[in-house]
C-alpha cells in the first residue's frame, strides 16, 4: 500500500523559505498573503492492512521523518 507523508512547519514556526517563496510570488504579480514550504515523503509499504500501515508510518514520523518540535505531519494512505 502507498502512503504519503506531508511534513509542514508548525503554525507560528518561522519559515524563511516560505517567506522567500511568498516574496517571489508577489514579485510575479500573484496575490499571496502567505506561503509555507514543507516536504512530501512518498512511501511504498509492504503491508496491505490500513491500520497496520498507519501505525508503521506514525512510528516512522516520530522516529525520523519529522521533528515534532517544529513540524506537523499528515498521513494519507492509498491501496495499491
Amino acid at each position: 500500500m502507498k502512503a504519503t507523508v506531508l511534513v509542514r512547519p508548525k503554525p507560528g514556526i518561522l519559515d524563511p523559505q516560505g517567506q522567500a517563496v511568498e516574496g517571489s510570488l508577489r514579485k510575479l504579480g500573484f496575490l499571496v498573503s502567505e506561503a509555507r514550504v514543507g516536504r512530501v515523503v512518498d512511501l511504498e509499504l509492504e503491508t496491505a492492512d490500513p491500520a497496520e500501515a498507519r501505525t508503521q508510518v506514525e512510528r516512522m514520523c516520530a522516529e525520523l521523518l519529522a521533528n515534532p518540535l517544529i513540524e506537523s505531519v499528515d498521513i494519507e494512505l492509498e491501496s495499491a
Partner: protein
Amino acid sequence: MKPLVAVVTFPGSNDDHDAALALRGLGAQAVAVWHGDSELPSGTAAVVLPGGFSYGDYLRCGAIARFSPVMGAVRAFADEGGPVLGICNGFQILCEAGLLPGVLRPNRQLEFVCRDVALRVERSGAPFTSRCSDGQVLVIPVKHGEGAWYADDGLLSELERRGQIVLRYVDDTNGSIGDVAGVRNEAGNVLGLMPHPEHAVDSLLGSTDGALVLGSLVDAAGGRSLAFDSIVTA
C-alpha cells in the same frame, strides 16, 4: 598522560581534522573515531562531534547521523556523565538525538553566514567554560546555513531558569531564539554550539578565544582521565 578525546567522523564531516589539531595543540590525545564504530576507544575522557554536513544534511541536518552506530556509544558515555561537545553539525546531531534541547533551523536570512561573531558567556564553569568568566565576550567564527536554534517560549524560559543557556550571540546572527549560540543539557555534561572554537585557536587566524572553550574541555577530560587511570591501576 594526555587525556584521550574522541573526535567522531561522520560521512560528510569536514571539521574533524581541525578539531583534532586544535585539541592536540591544547594537550589532548585526539583520536579519530569512525561513525560506524559501535564503541569509543578505551579510556575516552571526552567526545567531540565536529562540524560538517553529515549525510548531506538530508531530511533535516543531523537527523540521519543520529542513527550512526557510534551514537549509541556516545549516548552511553553522556549518560555516565562524560563530557560531549557538539560543534555546528555536531550540535545539530545532538539536538536531533535528543541529547540536547531544541532544534536548529535554517537561518532567518536564508543566507549562509561565515564570519567572526561576538559571543557572551552566560554560564562559566566546567566542563566547557571553566577557562571563561560569566559575561566574558568571546570572538569565534560561525559558518552555517542552518544555525537558528529554536525552542518554544516555555522550553526557553525553563532552560534559562536552569542555567542551560551557555553562550549567546551579542548581535542577532541567524534568528536564533533568545540569540542562543550554545546550550547544554540539564546535567551539564553535553554542550552544543554553532560557532567553531577549533577555528579560533591560533593568533594567525585572528582570535584565540576558541582555545578557552576547547581548553576547558581538555581540562575536564584530564580530570576524568586521572580517575580512569586510578580505576585501571587499582
